[in-house]
């Protein structure tokens, strides 16, 4: 067990956990931030995507001890009132079916748009290729990313 001071969604949060604990489980089990999802545990499905220093990462595969003072943003902190351009576009285009993978999809999309405000179809596909969706919402995700780029 060790103590860590994490900067999450603009707040300082202290946790006392095994240093090997992946960020995903720190968020979900210790900080009750349930928006970040468990899907595979091996960085293959993207359901656990969060921003670390503004970059999209798989929180299931980053031990809490590797984070240091880098700021973390989760779906809960993507915007104050759920009005990030990606969130607005997702609602506008009725993207979700079951909705389980969507926080991860949106975190990947938000990071992409920050780095590339006007991505092509191919750039969207390659940036989000690590985010699985069994419901098959890929087309609306692509449309929503393009819509978000205009908001």
């Amino acid at each position, binding site marked *: *067990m060790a103590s860590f001071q994490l900067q999450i969604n603009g707040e300082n949060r202290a946790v006392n*956990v*095994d240093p090997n*604990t*992946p960020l995903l*489980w720190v968020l*979900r*089990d*210790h900080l*009750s*931030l*349930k*928006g*970040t*999802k*468990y*899907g*595979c*545990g*091996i960085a*293959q*499905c993207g*359901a656990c995507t969060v921003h670390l220093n503004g970059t999209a990462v798989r929180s299931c595969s980053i031990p809490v001890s590797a984070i240091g003072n880098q700021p973390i943003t*989760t*779906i*809960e902190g*993507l915007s104050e009132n*759920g009005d990030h351009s*990606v*969130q607005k576009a*997702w*609602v506008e285009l*009725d993207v*979700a*079916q*079951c*909705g*389980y*993978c*969507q*926080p991860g999809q949106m975190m990947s999309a938000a990071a992409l748009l920050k780095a590339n405000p006007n991505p092509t*179809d*191919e750039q969207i*596909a*390659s940036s*989000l*290729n*690590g*985010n*699985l*969706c*069994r*419901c*098959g*919402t*890929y*087309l*609306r*995700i*692509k449309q929503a990313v393009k819509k978000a780029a205009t908001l």
Partner: protein
Amino acid sequence: MSRTESKLSRRNFLKSSALAGGGLMISFSWLVSCNSKREEALGLPEEWFELNGFLKIGDNGLVTIMAPNPEFGQNVTTSLPMIIGEELDVDWNKVIVEQAKFNTDVFTRQFAGGSQSVRQGWVNGLREAGAAAKYMLKEAAAKQWGVSASDITTKEGVLSHVASGNSAGYGEMASLAVGIEIPETLELKKPSELTLVGTARKNVRGKDIVTGKPMFGIDYEEEGMLIAMIIHPPAFGMRLKSFDATTAKQMSGIKEVFTITSFPNDEPRGYFSTDAFTETVVVVGNTTWEVMQAKKAVRVEWEQSPATQITTAGFGGTQQVTVPAGLENSTDHYRLMQQMAARPGRIERRDGNPEAAFKKAAKVIERTYTAPFLAHNAMEPMNFFARVTDDMVHLAGPLQAPEFAEQAVANRLGVPLEKVDIKMTRMGGGFGRRAYDHYVVEAALISRHMKAPVKLVYTREDDMTNGIYRPSYHATYRAALDENNNLIAFHAKAGGIPESPLHANRFPAGAVENYLAESWQIDSNITVGAFRAPRSNFIAGAEQSFLDEVAEAAGKDPIEFRLELLKRARENPVGDRNDYEADRYAGVLELVREKSNWDQPEEGVSRGVSAYFCHNSYVAHVLDVEMEGGEPRVKKVTCAVDCGIVINPLAAANMVEGAVVDGIGHSLYSYLTFNNGATEQNNFNRYRMIRHSEAPETIDVHFVKNDIAPTGLGEPPFPPVFAAVANALYKATGKRHYNQPYMVQQQISLG
């Protein structure tokens, strides 16, 4: 006006109103918290008035409608309340939707499966619930105004009496409407009178989903909750011998390690109580990560199981089943299926004289199709919460069949049904997997043992290796053409491990004079079950691929060829047990032909067509593909759907889009194989699922417009995708694909 008997609904409505006393309804805060922002924005009422178990009206006109069924992405949380709201004439902008608890006193068929939620809801009480409340409001207003209720009209939450100039919002009349008796029959709207149904409405949970609200089973928590995981045998055909948890028990955060038996062999099991690994080792601790680590530290010895007798309760009554012993391999599976296919099968249907017709045929075409086992891979891994006390069994989590789960838990724990309470959380997918209840029983047994609230969580590896899979299938088709290229005989022989995918009375049965359908199956200890459009998800692909090849051999356009057969089935059907309406079947083919511009394809595009009827709806797809560096790239899919009245065109199109993407992925990439009883894939690094870059560029969905009672969409658009892909690939490459998944070069069943 159409009229409907409302006796059943009346009983249920009265019961629920009596329970709630017509006043404030007590909600369960965890699920309702998801709505708080929207409720605040709309302005909370001072008081709620429950008019029946499906809805309550606030004194400010806000209406809460219950979503009675489990939600797993089919959007019933929006569409079922729309059906209720339609008959009530609500202002949809003033509606709050609440997920109902599992409650057989009020609701019927709280089940997600078989594409039945909308279809059964339409005829089983949802419209009556809205109509009954509207009746009560009208009666209340009539009394208040001293006018006849029949002269009062309703629109978007407002009651009006034109002659007297009176009008009032529903909120003003709600308190007076409570307790008004409803008549034996209620007037329901005609299709032409529908105003809410048929309009595009966004998912009522959209905002909660995009802000990451805790709404799924895996998000559920209660004070003092522990985390549990199970360790199951590494292979089908094996069982627990012994375990040593000395090290694991000393690890940080670990409470206990013990075994449970989900279903004892000597007790009859329910219909959805399929479970290969009934005896498992359980690790319980404080947090998920700690339990995951301790799980690895438990030393377990396994042994091969002998053949086992179990009693299952199917829809056709109880039966004795022998689960065979042995560690199975995919290579053997394929060889066994070939052997079975070569023997006479069980004849399911026979029309005319197929043997004679094949003998005199000018041309005989024979082709064999196969498909592997598949894992469901719902994105939310299996999980369930249980808090078992001396008085009650509290359960919460993602499940498709709560009525079956309640029974299974009550039986296993030896408590009466009324002592089992189930909260249905949103499901992160289900696709059939969450119809089974072993994990619900496991959670309850663990909580009882721990005397504490427990959430059981499967790792992805547990989920994929302890599956209730889509079976592996095999189908051989033969067709006989005469010298004029007329289809004179058709023979389908299909089987699988451990069930046959055959539907003997489906198209082209009824359209061919001489017809033979045979089934066979091979026993296995690998557990299988419902997977999005069971059986259809394979046989549609086989049949529609074969018909494409027969059309080509007959020198006919594949759509025209099918339409000719359907014309025969309509005008002069063979036999009287044909499970489809030829007109509606032809209707989707004609619509897809028009909308895809079938007769004038774009240059350089290869297209395939496929149509299928299952789960009460008709779907046809035209799929356009291009090859890029040896890999297929699906450009566009045009879909024509006949599901009767479309409740919510936005959500309906979403369902079709999703099923098309899912179908493309499973036809091209996905498979599960076995080596000595163990799956060779246990996570997404080895099990290939379709990804963004493999999805089509465009999916264009069209609905046949008619006034037929609505049917479902969760399953019907899925099965025909497999053949649309195969037929388009053939046009693109000249190669026919017979073995799913098509992009695995070596037939995967051969290992």
